[in-house]
């Protein structure tokens, strides 16, 4: 028995190690979800605001832009 769970001794340390890794990862993730939610709401407000403010760039549509010749020639 380690903590509150009884493990199969024939599996050695693999079973308790995996168990506690799972528990710690899940607890960390749950706490982190709250942080992501709060931070995400702040970033969402920024996204909405900046989409209103910045002028759209018609040339930014996925076409390949030539590498500046000075940069390409350097190598």
């Amino acid at each position: 028995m380690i903590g509150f769970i009884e493990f199969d001794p024939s599996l050695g340390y693999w079973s308790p190690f995996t168990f506690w890794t799972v528990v710690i990862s899940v607890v960390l993730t749950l706490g982190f979800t709250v942080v992501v939610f709060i931070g995400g709401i702040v970033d969402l407000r920024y996204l909405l605001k900046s989409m209103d403010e910045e002028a759209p760039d018609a040339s930014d549509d996925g076409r390949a832009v030539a590498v500046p010749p000075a940069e390409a020639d350097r190598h």
Partner: protein
Amino acid sequence: MPLASISSIHPLDWMILGVGFGFFLAWAIYLNTKTRSVADYLVSGRKVRMWLGMGAGIGGEIGLISIAAMCEQGYRNGFSFVIGNLISTPIMLVLFGVYGFGIERFRATRCMSVPQYVEMRFTSKLRILIGIINCIAGVLQMCIFPIGGAIFVRRLIGAPDTFMTLGMNIPTDWGLMLILLICPLIFTTLGGYTTLIVTNFFQGILVMATMTWLFVHVVIQSAPEATSGFVPGLQAMWSGLEQNLKLAGVNPFANSPDAYGIQFFLFLNVMTILLQFSYGPYLQQYASMDKPRTVSRSYLLGAIFGFGRSLIIFGLGVAALAAMGKAMPDTVIGVSATEWTSYATPYFLAKLGIPVVLMGFLLLALLFADVAVTDKYILSWSTSIVNDCIQPFRKSPLEPKAHIRAVRITVLAICIVLFLFGLIYKPGMTIWSFMWLTANLIGGSGIVVLLGMYWRGAKTPGAYACIAICVIAPLADIATRQVLARSGQTLPWTPEQTGLYTYLAGAVAMIVVSLLSGEKSKYWDLGAVVREQNRATA
């Protein structure tokens, strides 16, 4: 205990589903009014900051098909995946989270897709070739999403195999598949990537909360009859895992046919690295972020803290294993042994019963898990088809409205392909194997991008050699296996080994052929661009 049935879903659960759908739809309609340019539609105007990007990124990886696949893996292999992940996480964290290896450089190019970078670094013909290969492999991989998700939901809610409509007996999977395709179509059309980022963010939180609630419910219900509560349930579940899978349930390298094995993890890690530079949906997400450093920071935090979410879903499969064992119950008919592993968890959950309200949130979470991932992938491949396979053949670029319309039409066309595939699909391998097999074809372009970004000696002929090997070898492997299978034979190596050594051969070929080529390199120093962009937006 009888299986739950669709008619037993409480009106309150339908109401939760309806209100939730309305919430997401209202966001999509609102965001559509804010989308003014192609960049807004395809990469959220590159204004996504760390927390929102990370939340949406995590949400975009928990699709309905991923949930089905994780439950399947939990049932087949227990929690042994944990150890493999613990080994690979430090490598990935340092590479991508700390150094931003390759992913920061890709963001610095301001490209929307891999082929766009390939044209800038190599040639437009190579861009078209890679665009076509990646799009075919990506769409092929997506084909399993709607039908796989529909099968999972049908089993979960205990719906009949067929239903009568217009005097015809229609498979329920087809009806569910139609719903799972129409919803992403609506959300992709309204607002594109901006809608996707926002809905994926809320969906990620919703799935996390709902799956945790469901897991706690399942654990409590797993307690022996004489006892009750969370801890006895957890004990029963863990002991059940140990008894059924022994060491293979907690050690991925155990000497057992149930274990993953070291070759599987080597292949998985190499492919995970290469997909960071070649997989359209990942790179479109990186392209939407406000600066290169945001890409690495969100990777770092997402990798450290996002792992637990997968374990909760794996846990549902483990609970099914602990309660029912590995053998298929005699009461289950018309299901093959291959199908049973994917059927086991929804069958177990339906048998256990899901309480009112939780069922409503679960249906909402599953629906939007499907919307999130299908949206993300379908928009990415549609973008690539229009930008990399259509646009290069035009003499003048499309006007912004026509460009967005072309992406929307492509989204619709892909949805039709996915639906037609679902009509003929028969499960023949695990969901994970199918997804990795198709992703294998895309990995080769990761080598081209990686060497292109870091090695000034990388040349176009070398890139062609690499792509040829990485496409031909896996296809030859699949074809040979199909032929040998007819006479009951198989190749003496695994598909994972083929994938691993193909990448190695592809990299060697690219280096050797590039060294022999006299072509002038179009290399430019992306490291300096990364530093400049990080400073400019600091």
